């Protein structure tokens, strides 16, 4: 389990991270969402014992990162957003070096390394120099490195950044496999829909503050005040727009005439929404469908970081 209590990092008068309270339960995947500079990497660096917090504390499996960083390092597998590799070191030697760095015996390493290379689909690159691998391969190799000591917690900072679509899909598949293995994963990404697919819960961070935390559906539900309704009619949409404009809870009507669809933001409750539909039918508006538009994580993120207060 990962837990942060009042975690704060301050540079002069600037708060890179402010009073972060976060809980990631065992064997779950937690997505950390935020714009560049929001505080994601700062949080990850503190959890990886690379950065000293100004206040508060973080716990990995109940072990404090400030009081016992050496033990924390044994518990986590960390993959930074930017990393380099050593020149003139082969893939197998790269993993062997880190295996030795975690005190794994040579015989165990010899068994472990082929398995890890198979997991990240790099078994064919075993004897290639790491600096000659593609970006996607280096990312996968770095993930294999983070797994070498079999940690039950993985801290992955933008593991899919800079990858082409194919490499991204491969990375996602590996992460799914790790999730199935029961690893606790804390992952950040700016590819939000990808997180929505694999995360059990997400946290949205903006300007160093955690502004939303919960399951993907919970957070979407909390956005009800900004839900989008989509109405498809038989006939011209122009004729029905005045009817919807009269409703006090409707705003920003978008006319998609070529599809016979109008789309608008609706702030009313479910009961008020039901009454709107009844009135429309009474007015003999030829409605073919009246539905709530699915809000994806991208929309949630944009709405939240625009300043919509959530729970």
């Amino acid at each position: 389990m990962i837990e942060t209590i009042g975690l704060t990092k301050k540079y002069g008068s600037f708060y890179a991270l402010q009073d972060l309270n976060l809980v990631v339960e065992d064997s779950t995947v937690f997505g950390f969402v935020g714009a560049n500079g929001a505080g994601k990497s700062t949080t990850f660096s503190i959890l990886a014992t690379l950065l000293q917090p100004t206040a508060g504390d973080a716990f990995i499996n109940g072990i404090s990162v400030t009081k016992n960083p050496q033990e924390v390092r044994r518990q986590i597998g960390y993959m930074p957003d930017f990393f380099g590799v050593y020149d003139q070191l082969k893939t197998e030697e790269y993993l062997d070096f880190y295996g030795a760095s975690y005190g794994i015996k040579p015989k165990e390493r010899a068994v472990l390394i082929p398995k890890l290379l198979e997991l990240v689909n790099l078994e064919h690159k075993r004897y290639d120099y790491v600096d000659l691998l593609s970006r996607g391969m280096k990312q996968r190799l770095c993930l294999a490195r983070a797994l070498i000591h079999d940690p039950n917690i993985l801290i992955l900072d933008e593991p899919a950044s800079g990858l082409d679509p194919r490499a991204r899909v491969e990375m996602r598949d590996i992460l799914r496999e790790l999730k199935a293995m029961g690893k606790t994963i804390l992952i950040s990404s700016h590819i939000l829909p990808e997180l929505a697919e694999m995360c059990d819960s997400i946290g949205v961070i903006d300007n160093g503050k955690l502004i939303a935390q919960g399951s993907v559906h919970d957070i979407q539900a909390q956005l009800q005040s900004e839900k989008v309704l989509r109405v498809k009619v038989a006939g011209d949409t122009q004729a029905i727009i005045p009817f919807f404009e009269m409703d006090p809870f409707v705003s920003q009507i978008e006319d998609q005439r070529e599809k016979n669809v109008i789309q608008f933001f609706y702030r009313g409750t479910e009961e008020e929404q039901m009454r709107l539909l009844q009135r429309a039918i009474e007015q003999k508006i030829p409605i073919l469908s009246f539905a709530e538009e699915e809000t994806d994580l991208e929309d949630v993120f944009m709405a939240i970081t625009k300043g919509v207060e959530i729970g």
Partner: protein
Amino acid sequence: MKTLVTNPVLIKELKLRFRNLKSFTGILFYLIAMSIFVFGFIFLATSLTGSGFFRPDESFMLFSIMTYIQLGLILFITPALTAGTVSSEREKQTLNILLTTSQTSFQIIFGKMTSSIAFLLLMIVSGLPIYSLVFLYGGVSPSQLFFIFLFYLLTLLAIASIGVMLSTLIRKTIVAIIATYGAMIFMAGVTAFFLLISIQVSQMGSGAPSMSPMAHFWATINPPAVMLTLLQPPMQDQLQSLTMVPIPLWVGYTIFYLLLSVACIFLAVKKLRVNMNKYK
């Protein structure tokens, strides 16, 4: 000893260093330069006398010049090899990953430093056959050579410690290298200057030498001065008559540079990782 052999950083660093062609070409050019110097010196000495003989006192002179050249080499190469050990990892973005492994800071610093020292030792040892030519002509005892090599080892250790410490404290490799060269210039040049000033100051007034611990101190931490007393033991007595301090220079040199090395390594180990608990 087992920890030394199984230190992952040391093994990795040695592997990378000896896979690099630059390491071997460096040793090759060093040996070529030494050979040209030694054979050139012998050729000149024998052709100038016209007798074809190479006298033991000339052999000793050759040994002394070679010893100073090798000291110069140590002072010149060690900063370049050690001052980038940590900062270059930082620049290549490999340091953060290394710091999240369960290796201790001491293991990392020790591995980095030992690999640099090992390479320099290889360089010095590879020059031994050329060095040994002086034994053909006599004038130098094996024990003298042994002590000179111990002196090299200590000097290497001290400079490597300073280099690794500055590499840990300073983020940019180039700045760390410049700072380490600055420390070398202080060790070899500035201390010699201070030594001369101190002797002059101590002789002011009566003109006769008086006790000057400062002059003795500057001589003690100056590698060329200590080397001179090892090559020419009577120089020790002469210096003693100037400073009136009866402690051999090599004693002070050993104590000072061992302490300096320990202090530098300690600081490097302390500063390699952030102190996570500092704010409490």
